[in-house]
C-alpha cells in the first residue's frame, strides 16, 4: 500500500509541475488537448459505474444504486458536494436498515 501511495504522490506531483513547466505549444496540439479533456470524464464515469454496480468480479444492483439516485437528484438541485455524498450514504444505509 505504501508503494502505491508514493507512486501516486510522485506521479501526481510530477504532472502538476510539468503543467507549469512545459512549453505552451504542447497545448496547441489538438489531439493532446482533446485527450486531456476526455481522460477525466472517462475515468470518473468508469469509477462511478464500477463503484456502484460491481461486487468483486460480478455485477450487482443493491442499495448503492439508490444512493446514486439520491446523488443525481441532489446534483440536479445544485446541492453542495457534502450534501450529495452524505445524502447518498444515508439513503443506502436507511435502505439496508429497512430491508
Amino acid at each position, binding site marked *: 500500500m505504501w508503494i502505491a501511495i508514493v*507512486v501516486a*504522490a510522485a506521479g501526481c506531483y510530477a504532472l502538476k509541475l510539468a503543467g507549469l513547466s512545459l512549453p505552451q505549444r504542447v497545448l496547441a496540439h489538438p489531439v493532446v488537448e482533446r485527450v486531456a*479533456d476526455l481522460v477525466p470524464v472517462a475515468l470518473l*464515469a468508469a*469509477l*462511478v459505474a464500477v463503484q456502484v454496480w460491481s461486487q468483486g468480479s460480478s455485477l450487482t444492483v443493491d442499495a448503492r444504486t439508490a444512493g446514486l439516485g439520491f446523488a443525481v437528484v441532489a446534483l440536479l438541485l445544485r446541492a453542495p458536494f457534502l450534501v450529495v455524498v*452524505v445524502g447518498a450514504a444515508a439513503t443506502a444505509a436507511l435502505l439496508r436498515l429497512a430491508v
Partner: protein
Amino acid sequence: MSPPARARPLPRQERRTIVGESLAVGVATGAYGISFGAVGVAAGLSVLQTCALSLLVFTGASQFALVGVVAAGGVPLSGAMTAVLLGTRNTLYGLRMAPLLAFRGWRRVAAAHVLLDESTAMAINRGSTAAARLGFLTTGVAVFVLWNVATLGGALVGTTLGDPRAFGLDAAVGAAFLALLWPRLSDRRHRLVAVVAAGVALGLVPLTAAGVPVLAAGGVALLAGALDRTGAPD
C-alpha cells in the same frame, strides 16, 4: 507571498474580494475532506496512510480513485495508476496557468503542489499576475490546510464506525465520483464518452482483475480523442 517589485500592488478592495472568495472556496472544498478520510479507512487503509494521501497526493479525484479501486478489491498499484491518469488534468490546468502566474524557480516547485481544480478556477479569470497569484495561493493553501485537517477528522471518525456498509460509505464513493464528473456532463461529447467508458468498465468487471476496468475505460478517452476530428470545445 509578496508580489515581485515590478507588479503594481493590488487595490485594497480587490485584494479583499479575492481573498474572501478564495477562502470561501477553500472552506467548502476542505470540508469534504471529511468524506475522503472516512472512505479511506473504510477501504482498509490506516489513518496514517489516508492522511499521507491527502498530504502528498493532494488532488481529490485521484485520492478517491486510489481508495475506490482498493475498496473494490484491486491491487494498490492499479489504484495508483488510475490516480496518476486522473492527475493528467492538473497538467492541463498548469499549462493554462503558467503564463498567468509566471512563477520561476522554487516558487514554481512549491506552487505546483497546490495546483488544483479549485486554485485554477479562482485564478484563471483575474486581470493581472498579482491578482491571479493571490487567488491561486490563497485558495490552494486554504484547501491544503482544511483538506488535511478534515481528512484526519474523517479518518478518526471512520475507525470508530464499525461496518462501513451499515453507514452507506460504499455508496458515498460512487456519489463523490458522480459529483466530480457532473460539471463536465454539460457537453454532449463528454456525455457520450462517459456512457461508453462506464459501459466498457462494467463489461470488463467479470472478465478482468479489479482495477483493470477503470484503466481500460481511460483507453476510451484516448480513442475518442485520437479519432474525433471535430476539435475540442474551448
